[in-house]
């Protein structure tokens, strides 16, 4: 192991065994999570990474929630799609109806890491990790998704971008996406730049949604950007809706996305480069979304 003699020694508590509880129902899980030091365990990837990074372990109890029935499956109603927080990213990426209706979400889920990891990671765990570079939250932010959050004795909803307000003992139960009316001209797309082309966190990741009215004018335009400070950031696109989705509009959306976000320099690129890439990948995402909205070939 690597001990670089940084900071104080960990407390002896860190050496205590961590309990693993397997919740049978949402009620069970919430009761278990209400105890001191209990945290939810989804696919387990985040915990493995934390252990690898030797972050201080404060959890006394892990509550396995991925397989409880109330967090399972993708349900479709007339006005919304409800994706259980326990659904694995792999299942989201390969869901035919989701790929048709919200390609931005399916594409984002399918772009995460590797197939083996996508088969483990749960949607709820991926969101609750609050990592600004994670892909599904970027797509869900662009799509305007809402989380159903459950705590002991309460239920609330919050936009996916406000996941930071989750408190101890709370659990994401599901993610809700709006449904579009039949025949609506809506398109969405996810664009992610792997600067080195191999399994890695994105240099930049962008989700875009474009809805057109009967005349082909942009009715709704939404762009969310990840891998930036405070991300995912939903970009304020001001007066762009109401215009036709031409090259000027795309360029203006790209400019606004770059101006509204603060990337940080790291091994994947300097902040200056990332800002230009945010513009470039916003351009690509908005163009593809607009093409899809207009019934273009790439759907």
């Amino acid at each position, binding site marked *: *192991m690597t001990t670089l003699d940084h900071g104080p*020694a960990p407390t002896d508590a860190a050496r205590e065994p961590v309990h693993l509880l397997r919740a049978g129902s949402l009620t069970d899980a919430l009761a278990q999570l209400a105890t001191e030091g209990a945290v939810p365990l989804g696919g387990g990837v985040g915990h493995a990474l934390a252990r690898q990074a030797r972050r201080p372990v404060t959890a006394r109890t892990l509550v396995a929630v991925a397989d409880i029935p109330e967090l399972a499956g993708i349900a479709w109603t007339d006005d919304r799609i409800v994706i259980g927080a326990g659904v694995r990213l792999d299942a989201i990426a390969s869901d035919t109806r989701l790929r048709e209706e919200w390609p931005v979400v399916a594409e984002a889920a399918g772009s995460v890491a590797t197939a083996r990891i996508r088969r483990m990671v749960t949607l709820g765990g991926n969101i609750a990790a609050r990592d600004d570079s994670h892909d599904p939250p970027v797509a869900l932010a662009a799509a305007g998704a809402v989380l159903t959050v459950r705590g002991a004795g309460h239920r609330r909803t919050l936009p996916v971008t406000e996941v930071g307000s989750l408190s101890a003992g709370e659990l994401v139960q599901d993610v809700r996406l709006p449904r579009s009316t039949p025949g609506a001209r809506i398109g969405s797309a996810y664009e992610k730049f792997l600067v080195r082309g191999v399994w890695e966190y994105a240099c930049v990741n962008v989700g875009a949604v474009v809805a057109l009215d009967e005349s082909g004018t942009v009715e709704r335009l939404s762009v969310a950007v990840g891998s930036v400070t405070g991300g995912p950031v939903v970009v304020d696109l001001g007066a762009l809706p109401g215009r036709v989705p031409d090259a000027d509009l795309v360029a203006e959306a790209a400019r606004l996305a770059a101006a509204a976000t603060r990337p940080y320099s790291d091994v994947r*690129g300097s902040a*200056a480069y990332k800002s230009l890439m945010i513009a470039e990948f916003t351009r690509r995402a908005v163009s593809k979304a607009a093409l899809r909205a207009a019934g273009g070939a790439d759907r």
Partner: protein
Amino acid sequence: MSTTHAPVPGLPRERDVLPPVIGSAVQRIDAVEKVTGRASYAADTRIPRMLHAAVVRSPHAHARVLAVDTSRAARVPGVHAVITGADTAQVKWGAFRPDLYPLAVERVRYVGDEVAAVAAIDLETARYAAELIRVEYEVLPAVLDLDAALADGAPLVHDDAPGNLAHEFAFDRGGAREWLERSDVVVEGVWQSTRQWHGSIETIGCTAEWSQDRVTMWVNTQTPFLARQRYATALGLPLRAVRVVQTEIGGGFGGKSGDDNTSVICAILARKTGRPVQLVNTREEEFLASRPRIPMRYHVRLGFTSDGLVTAKEIDLVADNGAYTGKAQAVLGAATVRHDALFTYRAVKARSRLVYTNLVPTGAFRGFGNPSADWAVGQAWDLAATRLGIEVPDLFLLNAVESGSVSPHNHRISSCELKQCIRRAAAAIGWYDKRAAPTPHRGLAMGVSVHVSGRRSFGDYDGSSAIVRLTEDGRAAVIIGEGEIGTGARTTLAQIAAAELGLAVADISVSRPDTDLTTHALGALASRVTYVAGNAVKQAAERACEQLLAAAARQTGRPAAELWVEDGHVHAPAMPGEDTPLRQPVGTVVRAELYRPGGEPIVGLGSFDNPSEFPDQLRYGNESGAYNFVAEAAEVEVDPATGAVTVLELAAAVDCGTVLNPPLAEGQVEGAIAQGLGMALTERFDWDGGAPTRPNFVDYKMPTAGVMPKLHVEFADSYEPTGPFGAKGVGEIALDPVPSIVASAVADAVGVRVHELPITAEKIFWGIRTGSTTPPEQAGPGGLSESAEPAPPDRPAPPRDRAPGEER
């Protein structure tokens, strides 16, 4: 040297009658063990009462160690020993320049330097106790790059190395300056490579156990005998007190050459506790404290006549040694002279300096300096081709060495199919067709390289010896100390023995190195095992076979000349008056030779020393008996909106003499190309305070199958007269040209030539956008430069080199 296989005029050469097992796709003899998980790697070693260990490392690049408080750690239940530098022999060790203590004495010199260690009942306890050790440091000024280390008045990494120079040498062979002055075309530039880690799936590890006054170390080292010698020094012990046994090795690539402290610390803990101890690097430790590739900065000048004949080359090379020397001194030698065995230079001049820095020590990595040399010198050749208006393959063909060539350093080239390789690589990539119909944002490039088959470097011996014992059940045991690091070397040696003995490969076993039990061997380095050890095994098998036939002759009353071995049987034609030919199982002959009054075993001893010279201090001398060659061509595509590079196709034509086992040889070439692409494009860290900010695979990206280009791997029709069945080395050669061809192809695609590895998308992007490959805020005054080429990062600034098509 062996002359057994020198071609004899008028007689058919051996190459025309190679045994069928030579050149066939024999399955690896360790395949089943490995795919079923039964192979026992370093961390799989289990000895009763074994303890586990953890190491405390310096968080500072340079500091004085004022105090180490181990009291809390020592009190943890389950801890058996806590050691610091005071518990060691306090002897400096190292392959060439002893400068490394097993645990820090007074000073630490890089982030990761070993300060203390713990052995405990289990790994968790050892790690926990290690975290309780308090070290008081006085932080000292550190030198964190080459320029800082070379600056006047720079802090010294080692007090006995003024100017932070660990090693330097210079030569001028043939009057290079005069040739350059008389040249029609001179190109020059500065190119810098960067640290590259081996990234083996298995990290470095050791298990040590003492018995009386001897220690046995089960280590995943690729050079057990050389490592043993150094471990004995480091432990303050006579050589006889140390026994090294090689475990299975999950990737070597030079990184397991035994230049780091892991095994030494393990042995000290085992002595202190009186129990077996195991110490295996974590991934983070492997990045912080193994011995990655040496960053090298070359200033290259290259001269030509107007019709494209090379005249002379001058290089000024500075290499980042890191805090301790290890093999870096030898790497510097190879990186200075080897590439001069590629072209017919009239004169070469070099000045090479190995510079201490307060960074992770560097050392051996597949290619041994040549990838950095070939990247820098290859860039100059590529620029020259553009300046001369000659296609790169044609320029190479004009100047390439041939069989019989002698380099300015007395490299005596025996077999050489470099020109064949150049033609085949050009054909495989479709060079002239693609040139005739260029595609926007696509670029084409070619590079060449030469490597050794063994290198006389560790004293005046680059030999190997082997024992082949025929067993009374009709098999053969090859006893040799060379080992296996995953290349398939033991399989190849088994093929050679099988071919000589007339036995099936399945009936050959090849030993693992054990310094007590096997023959002495230098191990897996310098692409030497197939050539050097192959010759030793071949001779041992020949001699065993001669004894077998002599025994069979005595037993059957036939003349030995009538006998031969095939399919595990001794054969002879039917005697006059008899119907059936003789067909006697080998085991029967061996047993009969043993089970008689005064009976003897059948054991052949083979020995081979590389027909090479021990180079002098200035690196003059024919370092190897056989040189292998490669030509590689690549086509890349650059996305101008991002700078991202896709390597579309890569063709490699390799001259490694006879290909003994095609899938194994192809595997070596493909793996080397993958590592070359990582070096060229993706492998890097963010650094802060002299260490990677995240020393793990999250940041450090090695190529995966998903980014590999379409590969065309071909082998030249070639035969090395001094090689076993005509074979030469193949383990490293294909890596060497990759960074250069990627860089040249990018320059061809978008006109941006990157001068510092890796060639990241961002550098290319800024190059396209601004002409400088650094972000605007990091560039000089004004940021956005108008020049088409970045200024080389060196001082004094040489004339800037040119983008393709640009005239001087």
